[in-house]
């Protein structure tokens, strides 16, 4: 240690509390050189690795529960933030003026109905892209390319509408007559995409799996004590994933197609009893530790009619809805294993 630091250290010790915390920490910190020297010594001790040994005689124990986090993954893409959709529209319009022009004759033979339709549509929207609105990237007024306030062009629903309109119409104005001798184009019949908000969303039907299609839904059950929790049960002479599949079949019924994701727990919750219980083996049980396994539902629905675990009710909830239902301490131990979306 150099002399300068020695004196500062002495000063610091004399100054007592009047020196600020960060300075004191800096002064009393070991230098890298001393830390390295200490590390070299420590290396030999750690090198002989001693495996953790089980405790000789545990007098206090915890009961072990297996829990199942049964979830339905998101079914559709998420709604874009207005900034994202504005950015994407900007980039698409930029692309329209920077990319090589569309090779029309490679896709449409001259003087065919398809070619005429293409020309009509191009006259209307001025650009090959079908979902960016009326936009012109070239010419004297190409600078006028910004979307005005209140314009719908960046809206996702509006873009889908335009695509459907393009597929469904031939771009003819009202009252325009067809040229003679032209063949009609056969249009493919297509179904409109189903709405992104379903009936269950409108009714806020938390029993339905057809709700909140953009979010992950988790199965929450009301247990014997009236608490909302993930389905869980005491482990009896089996391993965790065996218990998890048993819980699924015993509580949810056979009308459910599920997949257990891996055999390892993704989280744990510890519940301490207010009064310890003495077990017949002479040990004191302090509480319950629950280990959660992850499962996905592929098809079917929960049926609690013949539930052997005594669950009273169930709900399918997204993460933020789940927070309101469960207990505070339960939420803190559970929140980090749930997907945000």
């Amino acid at each position, binding site marked *: 240690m150099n002399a300068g630091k020695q004196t500062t250290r002495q000063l610091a010790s004399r100054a007592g509390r009047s020196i600020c915390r960060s300075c004191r920490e800096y002064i009393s910190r070991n230098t890298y050189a001393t830390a390295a020297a200490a590390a070299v010594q420590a290396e030999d001790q750690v090198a002989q690795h001693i495996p*953790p040994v089980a405790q000789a005689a545990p007098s206090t124990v915890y009961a072990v529960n297996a829990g199942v986090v049964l979830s339905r*993954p998101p079914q559709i893409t998420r709604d874009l933030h207005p900034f*994202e959709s504005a950015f994407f529209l900007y980039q698409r319009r930029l692309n329209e003026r*920077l990319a090589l022009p569309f090779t029309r004759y490679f896709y449409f033979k001259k003087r065919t109905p398809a070619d005429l339709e293409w020309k009509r549509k191009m006259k209307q929207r001025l650009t090959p892209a079908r979902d960016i609105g009326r936009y012109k990237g070239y010419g004297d007024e190409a600078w*006028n390319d910004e979307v005005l306030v209140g314009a719908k062009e960046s809206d996702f629903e509006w873009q889908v509408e335009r695509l459907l309109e393009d597929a469904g119409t031939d771009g003819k104005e009202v009252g325009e007559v067809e040229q003679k001798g032209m063949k009609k184009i056969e249009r493919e019949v297509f179904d409109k995409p189903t709405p992104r908000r379903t009936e269950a969303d409108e009714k806020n039907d938390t029993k339905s799996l057809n709700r909140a299609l953009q979010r*992950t839904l988790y199965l929450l059950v009301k247990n014997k004590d009236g608490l909302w929790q993930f389905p869980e049960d005491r482990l009896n002479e089996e391993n965790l994933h065996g218990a998890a599949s048993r819980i699924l079949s015993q509580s949810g019924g056979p009308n459910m197609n599920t997949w257990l994701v891996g055999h*390892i727990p993704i989280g744990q919750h510890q519940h301490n009893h207010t009064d310890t219980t003495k077990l017949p083996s002479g040990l004191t049980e302090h509480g319950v530790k629950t280990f959660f396994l992850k499962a*996905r539902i592929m098809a079917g629905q929960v049926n609690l009619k013949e539930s052997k675990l005594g669950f009273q009710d169930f709900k399918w909830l997204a993460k933020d809805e789940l927070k309101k239902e469960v207990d505070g301490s339960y939420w803190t131990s559970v929140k980090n294993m749930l997907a945000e979306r």
Partner: protein
Amino acid sequence: MALRELPFRTVAALGRDVRPAVRVLHPLCRRNASSEAAREVESASSLEVPPPSEELVRGYDPVARSRLRRRGKKELPPSRYQYRSPKYYRGPLHPHQPPPESDPSSRLFQPGPFDLPRLEQTYQSTIASDLLALTYQHYPPGYRAPKNEQRLREWTGASPYYKNRPLRGPRGKGEVLRLLQEPRTFRNIPRITRVVVHSMVPEAQENSANMHVAGMILQAITNVRVESHRARHNVVGWGLRQGRYVSVTSTMEREDAQHFLAKLIDVVLPRIKEWKGVPGSSGDGHGNIHFGLTPDQLALFPEIEVNYDAYPPKMIPGCHISIITDATSNKDARLLMQAIGLPFYGKLND
């Protein structure tokens, strides 16, 4: 030293009574994992600013405004107000430097991204966490991974040239150093880095039209400019002559790759008759999966189907698709592929 310290000491002495008040404020700056995160730097966003009044919006016509402004005046030539990036890079000391590639006025600018692909969103929300749960390996507390010894061979001998010489590779012809298998954490979940489509057309040596057709098809299905390659050696058995153009590839990244895979898995592969899946023997042991499509399978891509007549039917090539991932083993790469919907058949290559 003492003189310099004096003002500090006096201030400290005077301020000793004030200090506790500052202490009270201190815990606000410090944050534990359990406490609330610090608020954003700016709580207000420009998106929350109320829009201009309706009359102003309705009456705003940029074209008319500009016409009014320019009336009766001579227009400036574009060179006076338009910035043009220099055509050649003249070195870091030249006063006229090109703008960064991300600037739309740069000559190298490429627009994008254009949307958030569905496959990417599924990966983020579902696949990544499932892969972590499937491949996580738990170690008990106190476990220390055994130190991996040097995998390269040393130069043993008395020769003075062996001193400071780089270590030798693994013994045997064609042997390579395998990738290290790091323990799985949330930071190294395998993901798709890029997709390469490759099409070999040896007929292009006689008739270059084959090459053009292959290039057009690959560009149509991948949305990326193709790169053409020459034969590096004479191979009599395959009819290759050195220096002739024989193949085209296109490399997709990010958005293009996601769109291509989604199209392949949801549209093309389900329409192939009696397709068994990707052979289980596929995979190079470094996390990459390869498989091929025949010409009639390639023609099932919607971009080709829409104007199938434009391509000479006999010149449509087959292709090889390489999906390149972050995974370090065949097993992990295959798990990722299965998660995005590619089935495997036959004996698996581990």
